[in-house]
């Protein structure tokens, strides 16, 4: 990477890189919307080639994102994905071939783009995002997500919000997130702690529609009701000892036949194998074109943030969210999603709190009641791993009461985060306990 930057510097700015002729037109010329303080040429170019960028997900969006970033001038790209390639991925995940089925997505995608776009380094990690800690995420300039799980999005969001250190500007990592469903999708940019975060925007994800259990059990009317019945009730009654594997064709076939039989009993038409698969696996339709649109929108923002060649989404006080719909003509809605003051993740950030590690939890709790900014009189306290003290329910109070006489160093480690809930406040307080002694 150092070599690269050097060659850029010594070769001079304009038309010296025939391969990047097109990109360099933009990097070397100011436009009507670029910031007046922006310096074109080398600094813009360098910002781009030095930026280490992380891609989370190497699926439908991830494949596109890797290609787009490599052809946007990023040189050092990392990618995380825990999944292996399935045959149903091939209609859109264009870095994979039939022969790759069963291999790790991150690995195959990284090798493919590295081979196709010379000079880019792509480092894959085949595993979970939760395997990695703050130190790992701290090395990146920004993070681009192409995920299908809300849970993973919430995790990385909370991690990035928690990493922000007021004294270190580099600790704030822009998070660019894309998502698609059929002809619909969205691209959004988050500056953790500065702008509305994934948790603030949780209501943008519609919860999965569910049918009452009793309808499934007694009055099914739709083919989907029969499939859900086979999935939730019949399997447990008849095959309790076998863990249901959504990817095992024998299991799906069993459910399909159960559902079909039940549908026949009730004269309900329409149960098919494909519908069974769709209901059981909660399959969301996915197509290449929507992925291309959303991934490119995310990478366009990443490029603008890294190069400053134009204003980007997510600048505090401006639009940060683009919604896209393509089934009826083409429609986009770009707007500012406002940060929520009571967001459990970014509403109240962890503050450093100096404590004497030899004081007891009881003494610590008493000191909280005297804190000027928030008098926490009946606090319930925990760390990620431990319940320190719970005011209620009574059984938990009793179970955690012995902790009150323990010394802080026995309960928490230096620098560990605690969360405090107090009935007087709607939102939790978070502190990083720093040992004075």
């Amino acid at each position, binding site marked *: 990477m150092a070599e690269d930057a050097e060659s850029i510097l010594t070769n001079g700015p304009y038309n010296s890189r025939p391969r990047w002729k097109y990109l360099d*037109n933009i990097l070397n*010329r100011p*436009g009507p919307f670029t910031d007046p303080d922006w310096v074109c040429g080398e600094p813009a170019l360098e910002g781009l080639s030095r930026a280490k960028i992380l891609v989370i997900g190497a699926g439908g969006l991830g494949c596109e994102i890797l290609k787009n970033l490599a052809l946007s001038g990023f040189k050092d790209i990392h990618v995380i994905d825990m999944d292996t390639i399935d045959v149903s991925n*091939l209609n859109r995940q264009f870095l994979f071939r039939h022969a790759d089925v069963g291999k790790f997505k991150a690995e195959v995608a990284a090798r493919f783009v590295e081979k196709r776009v010379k000079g880019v380094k792509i480092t894959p990690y085949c595993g979970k995002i939760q395997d990695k800690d703050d130190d790992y995420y701290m090395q990146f300039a920004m993070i681009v997500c192409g995920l299908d799980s809300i849970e993973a999005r919430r995790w990385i969001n909370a991690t990035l919000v928690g990493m922000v250190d007021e004294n270190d500007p580099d600790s704030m990592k822009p998070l660019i997130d894309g998502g698609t469903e059929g002809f619909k999708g969205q691209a959004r940019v988050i500056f953790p702690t500065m702008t509305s975060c994934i948790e603030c925007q949780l209501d943008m994800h519609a919860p999965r529609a569910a049918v009452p259990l009793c309808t499934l059990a007694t009055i099914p009317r739709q083919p989907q009701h029969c499939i859900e019945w086979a999935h939730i009730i019949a399997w447990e009654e008849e095959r309790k000892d076998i863990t249901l594997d959504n990817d095992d064709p024998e299991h799906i076939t069993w459910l399909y036949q159960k559902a079909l039989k039940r549908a026949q009993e009730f004269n309900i038409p329409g149960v098919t194998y494909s519908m069974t698969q769709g209901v059981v696996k909660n399959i969301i339709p996915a*197509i290449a074109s929507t992925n291309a649109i959303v991934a490119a929108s995310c990478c366009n923002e990443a490029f603008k943030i890294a190069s400053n060649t134009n204003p980007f989404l997510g600048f505090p006080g401006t639009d940060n969210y683009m919604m896209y719909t393509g089934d009826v003509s083409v429609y986009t809605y770009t707007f500012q999603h406002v940060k929520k003051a009571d967001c459990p993740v970014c509403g109240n950030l962890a503050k450093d709190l100096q404590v004497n590690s030899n004081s007891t939890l009881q003494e610590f709790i008493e000191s909280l009641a005297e804190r000027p900014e928030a008098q926490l009189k009946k606090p319930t306290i925990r760390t990620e791993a431990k319940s320190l003290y719970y005011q209620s329910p009574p059984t938990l109070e009793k179970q955690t009461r012995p902790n009150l006489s323990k010394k802080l160093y026995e309960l928490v480690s230096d620098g560990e985060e605690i969360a405090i809930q107090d009935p007087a406040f709607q939102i939790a307080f978070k502190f990083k306990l720093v040992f004075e002694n």
Partner: protein
Amino acid sequence: MTGTTPPPLHGPTSKEKKYDRQLRLWAASGQAALEQSHILLINSGPGVVGVETLKNLVLPGVGHFTILDSAIVTEADLGVNFFLEEEHLGGFRAEHSCTLLKELNPDVQGSYITEPTESFLSKPIALKPYTLILVTAPINPQLLSKLSANAATFQIPTFYIHCIGFYSQFSIHLPPAFPIVDTHPDPESTSDLRLLTPWPELSQFATEKTKGLQEMSHHDHGHVPYICLLLHYLEEWKSTHDGQVPQNYKDKTAFKASVAQGERRNNPEGGEENYDEAVAAVLKSLNPTSISSAVRDVFEAPECKSLTPETSGFWIIAHAMSIFYATHAVLPLPGSLPDMKAQSADYIQLQNVYKSKARHDLAEVLSTVRTLEKKLSRAVVIDEKEVEAFCKNAAHIKMVRGRPFHIVLPGETVRWGDRAKKAAQDLTDPESLILLYIAFLAIDTFIATHDVDGLGCAAKVAGGDDWESDTEEVEGIALKIIDGLINEAGTSIDEDEYSEIKSRAREYAQELVRAGGSELHNISALTGGLVAQEVIKVVTKQYIPVDNTCVFDGVRSKSSVLRF
């Protein structure tokens, strides 16, 4: 351990497995249409947006694609085009991109032509084999004009695509009549229950199910389908309102309250779901059935009114449908029933009441179609399935009237025709991207007047070398186009607004010239996604395509759809 389950008789085929995620959208019929199509890309400039479009068509399994491009692979291509490699330097761009695209899907055929566009177009039937044509700018306007005219004679849908820097734009020229039956309307908007005009079987079913409503057990009372409840309370209402159904919002609110009063709250649940459903449906389900303006347009169309032996199946069915509408004042019943709280058997019975009425209506339309066919002595018989699909979606059919896109010829001014008024109005709308579209027209004008060798591919790009003076020129052209538009529309715009329009147009022109004809990969990929999606809609005749121009602004991440 239970024994292993035998495999189903009709398990998914390997193709169904590969295309599973898209078949859930456009089904086997859409897939078949896609697989029968042959797309021609006439490529130029950096040539990325066209190739990215093809990528998004090869993956879902388009039948055949052909790239027409005489350009040679240069170093600059490798920094922006994903479907070229170092070893291809000096070779034909069309050939190598074609090879790498074909790798994405072994079921797709790909070809390439390296002949210059001009000589390719000199053969009058050159375009005939293609289902749809994609043309990317820059292209010599005379060639584009010829191509557009040729494609129109064969009624081949043609896309004209621009992608420069952070901006892109494409226009679609569809045939003069482009009907869509399978528009995939929002399921919420599709239920047509006919509660104000029930047919005898439905009324009879409702009467049966609501007999002795007061005396019913909690269980039975809580399971009367809401449709029956509404029909029951409507009868009550009519008996106290001179036989009239609720007429206006006030009536409906009163009616809603009378339904809500019937709900029992002294049961273990403290309420009844079926009554809640009935109350919630009053405002949206008790509307007199009327047809949408889109359907009216179809019925009023000259193609629908005067049939000839050459008339396509769509218009014959539409004609039969208009006869049905003239007779019954409603469209054929679609026959679908939303899910609702009910006993299984009651629901299935009610579903059958709707289905059998739908079959009855279909039979009537079908018999009209057959009579028309005989009268016109048509050779080919319209498939019953086609008539059925039409009946099911009759309320949501849509017809797009294709129109040619702007082609700027040297020395000619841009004409806006019947769209001038609307376009002039859009000039003052800050949300509209019409000024960006005008900036693209200015770029086309620049190219038309600076053509280097007349071949189209080697046109001089705005901002290629002397970007500052080119900026000034393109700004000037854009302002002229704006003046021309205001003039043609005959509207007056006040001073402040006019100077605001001018300064915004200048900014778009500056940003476009800044790129010097470059494509940014992200914008090409995004636009390639949009174009591919529209190609799929046009080829499958499903969903509703852009009519007819889409503009994307990658600086602000916004888009506009405009009609010219």
